[in-house]
Structure formats: C-alpha cells, structure tokens
C-alpha cells in the first residue's frame, strides 16, 4: 500500500521539480526514489495485509510482481535521458507519465476490488496512449497512438461490461466475496458471460491471437522507448493481472474454458512466430515475438502447482531480455527514420559489446541455455506436462524451434554483414542498462530457485 502512495508522490514530485526549474535533477531523483520504493516494497513482502475495506490487498504475489515492475521502470527511466536528449524541456512529462503508469501497474496486481482493477488498468492504458503518440510531429507516432487508443478503449468498454455482469450476478465488487459466492450451486448465467468478457478484454491488452492485430502497427509506429515499455512492462502487467483475476474469481476453471485457453495459447505462439519470420523491421519483429511469448505465458493459467512462481520467473526473464534488446536498438536506431534490419549490419565489428548483449538477449528469448529464457521454458513445459497438456507442449517446442529462425536472422546480420556506417558514440547509460539487464538475466538463469520459490 505504501508502495503505491510513494510512487504517486514521486510522480507529483517530478512535476513540482519542473515548476521549480530543477530539470537536470529529475532523472537522478526519480531513479533514487524508485530504488527507495523498491526497498519499501520488499519490506512489505512478509506482511500481507488488506487496506481500505479490501480495496488493496498486499500479498506475496503483488509485492513480488510490483518489485519486477519497479525494476523495469528504473531501466526505462534511465534510458529516457538519452532518448529525449533533444526534448529536455518536456522531460518531466515523460518521467511523470511513466511513474503514474507504474502506479497503475502496481494497482493492477494488488487490487482486492474490481473498482481498483478497473482504475488501475485505465491509469496504465491512458498513460500508454499518451506515450505512444508522444512524438507529436511524426505521422507514424500519431497513427500508432490513435490505433492504440481506439483498440484500448474498445477493450476497456468490453472489460467494463464484463465487470458489470459479474456485479449483477454477485451483488459485490470484492474479489474474495466473489470467490466465495462462485462456489455456490446456482449462479445467474451473467456470471460466466462476465468472466468471458473480462477475459476477452484482457486478451486485447496482452495482444494474444485473435486480438493481436493492433500490436505490430502500434509497436512499429510508437517512439522506440515507448515500444520498449509496451513490450516489457505493459505486457507483463497485463498477463499478471489476467492470472490474478482468473485464479481469484473463478472457483475452478471449467474444462471448456481450459480448452479455450489451450487454443488461444497455441494460436498465439504459432501466428506470432510465423508472422515474425517475414518482418524486416526489428520493432515489428519483436512485436510478433511478444505475441508468441504471450502465448507461452498463457500456459501458466493451466498449471496446477506453483503457477504463480513459474509466471513470475518467465515474465522476469522475458522482460529483462526485452530491456537489454531494446537498449541496443535505441543505440543503433538513434536519429534514424526506421528500425530496419539493415541498420544492424556489422554491429559485431563496430560495437562488439552491444552486439554481444543483443545476441544474449535474443538467445534468451529463443530459449538457449545459460540464459534465463531457457530455464523459464524448461520449468514451464515441465509443469505443463505434469498438468497433462502434452499436445500443447509439443506445439510450444516446435514454436521455440521456429523462433530461432528469426532471432538468428538478426544475429547473422550483426556478425556476417559488412558495417555500413561508423559508430563512435558511447553513451554510458545505455551501456550500463544493457549490461545490468543481461547480467540479471544470466543470474536468474543460474539461480532460478531465488524467484521460483518466492510464491510457492
């Protein structure tokens, strides 16, 4: 609870610093503040409690996911300095919006009442609409913002309708009461319809097939830093929230509903990977890769033992690899019109360190050993087989093999092609973020039990 208040306070402090003309201090103060908030959040880990009539429930689940979100936000705030170099006058807006977005994200995983869930998802989405269209003069960014806005508010409408039907069936917004009532024998037919509508709305937000069509366009058109935010933070938040919603509200997931999840998961992986094979724009490729990873993460909804821990481990490894990859993309495509793959030609010769980091991040996403992505997939597949979904795991393994195809296309372009430009700039912050993210990723790979057993 105090985490949420502290984050909002930090956001307001950012806006005040702008008024008092301390623009240069905004990024350092935000990072220090976020580190303090991280400590505050970890201190709440062992004291689960409900606040304000069950509006917010602080639990191990919510604190560990909040810690992941805060770490990701620290990386994204650190990258903002270089990215908004030519727009220093408005730096406080960008940072403050990111902090408020983080507040929405924390509210989304620690809600105890559907009202709080709705407010959290809207705070997150509205902040993302603004960030997606934040490059005002670029037609691409405008278009991305508009598409994201239309799809996002459409999905919010569907989620709201679902919440309304759940309320109509249960007469309460409190998820513990809903969970108790959902065991009773006779429920109005509105309750399952409401659950399905909320599920559909959340599939829009995590960009799973068949509701993924907005993702590639929006990821390509948005400014690169916003794309990094959407493909790491926003995706992880949405999937964690969907997990919490379904486990908290549904007494037990029925067999038909499990079939739906299996089909959505298989379709997301397959469509995402096959479409990614033919992309030349790296951001677009990572958007489809994100669609396929959403499919993998949906598998955790079917697991029976330690599902939350597996989800936390998979999403941390995916998000850290994403941050490392995007910080290299920010470096390579700085001041470029597009993010096509030919910008990466010869990066292995002109900047070996960053090329190695991007290679590591892509290998982690593909699931190659020593990186955390491999162990995440290993545990996920293992648990899914134990839950009895062998066909789903077979499809998932085939998809992992397909995904190597497009990840290696980028890696080969970096090492086998001749460089087409000279790269001399060595921005310290980008190096630091990329190195820390990939080191954390490898550390997760060596010590998986640190994260896996947190929620057991």
């Amino acid at each position: 609870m105090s985490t949420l208040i502290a984050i909002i306070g930090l956001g307001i402090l950012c806006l005040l610093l702008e008024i008092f003309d301390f623009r240069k201090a905004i990024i350092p103060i935000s990072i220090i503040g976020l580190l303090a908030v991280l400590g505050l959040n970890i201190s709440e880990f062992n004291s689960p409690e409900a606040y304000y009539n069950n509006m917010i429930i602080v639990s191990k689940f919510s604190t560990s996911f909040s810690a992941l979100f805060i770490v990701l936000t620290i990386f994204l705030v650190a990258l903002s300095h270089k990215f908004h170099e030519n727009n220093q006058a408005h730096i406080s807006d960008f940072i403050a919006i990111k902090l408020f977005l983080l507040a929405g994200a924390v509210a989304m995983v620690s809600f105890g009442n559907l009202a709080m869930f709705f407010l959290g998802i809207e705070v997150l989405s509205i902040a993302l609409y603004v960030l997606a269209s934040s490059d005002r003069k670029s037609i691409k960014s405008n278009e991305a913002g508009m598409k994201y806005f239309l799809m996002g508010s459409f999905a919010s409408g569907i989620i709201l309708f679902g919440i309304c039907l759940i309320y109509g069936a249960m007469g309460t917004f409190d998820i513990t009461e809903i969970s108790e009532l959902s065991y009773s024998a006779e429920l109005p037919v509105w309750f399952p319809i409401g659950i399905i509508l909320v599920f559909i709305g959340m599939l829009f937000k995590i960009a799973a097939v068949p509701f993924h069509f907005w993702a590639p366009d929006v990821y390509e058109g948005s400014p690169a830093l916003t794309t990094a935010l959407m493909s790491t933070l926003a995706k992880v938040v949405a999937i964690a929230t969907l997990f919490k919603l379904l486990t908290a509200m549904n007494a037990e997931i029925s067999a038909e509903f499990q079939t739906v999840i299996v089909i959505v998961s298989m379709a997301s992986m397959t469509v995402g990977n096959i479409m990614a094979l033919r992309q030349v724009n790296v951001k677009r490729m990572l958007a489809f890769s994100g669609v396929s990873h959403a499919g993998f993460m949906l598998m955790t909804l079917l697991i029976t033992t330690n599902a939350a821990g597996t989800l936390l481990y998979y999403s941390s490894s995916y998000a850290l690899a994403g941050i490392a990859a995007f910080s290299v993309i920010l470096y390579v495509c700085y001041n470029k019109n597009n993010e096509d793959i030919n910008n990466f030609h010869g990066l292995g010769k002109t900047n070996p360190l960053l090329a190695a980091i991007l290679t590591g991040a892509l290998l982690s996403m593909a699931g190659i050993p020593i990186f955390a992505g491999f162990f995440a997939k290993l545990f996920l597949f293992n648990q899914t087989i134990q839950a009895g979904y062998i066909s789903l795991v077979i499809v998932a393994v085939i998809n992992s093999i397909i995904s190597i195809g497009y990840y290696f296309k980028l890696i080969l372009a970096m090492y086998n092609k001749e460089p087409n430009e000279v790269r001399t700039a060595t921005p310290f912050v980008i190096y630091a973020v990329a190195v820390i993210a990939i080191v954390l990723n490898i550390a997760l790979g060596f010590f998986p039990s640190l994260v896996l057993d947190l929620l057991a």
Partner: protein
Amino acid sequence: MDNILNEIGIENYIFLAVILFSIGVCGVLYRRNAIIVFMSIEIMLNAVNLLFVAFSTYHQDTQGQIFVFFSMAVAAAEVAVGLAILVSIFKNMGTISIDKLKNLKG
C-alpha cells in the same frame, strides 16, 4: 424505485444495455469518422453505466452507483487524451478519417 424495477424486470434493463452496447460496437467497427467512433465508444461506456445503476437498485446496494462515478471520470479522461491525439493528427494530415491512417504496414 423498487416497485418500478419489479414491474419492468431486470431482464429488460439488460436487453436495453446490450442493445445500446452493440450499437456502440457497430459504430466503432463501421464508421470512418474519428469523432463518430469516439461517440460510439461513449455509447458503449454509457450503456454499461445504465446497467450498473439498474443492478445497483436490483441488489439494493450503492456500490454500483459509486462505480458509475469512477467510470464516468475515467471515460472523460480517456476522451480528453483521444481528442488531443486527434488534434495532432488533424494538424499533420488535415483529415480525421480513419481510412487515411495506413502508413504502418508490413
């Protein structure tokens, strides 16, 4: 209030809300003018607000009416952001037709 709800029946409120919501969905899917699409999204949200109030009376519980305030405030904030995006699109392209937004493909 309770008598009225008993005479009309909660089902009819649900049908009305579903019809309004579907009108909104059709508007979002088929209309090409961005302003009209925004209006359709508002119709969707307001259909839900109507149903919230009806359910609130049905259950004799005020939580539903409080939720309507939240969703109205959120809808206002959302549309404010949407209109801002629309203004910058109009400045750059000189049109607000959604059909013209076709620069991103692949």
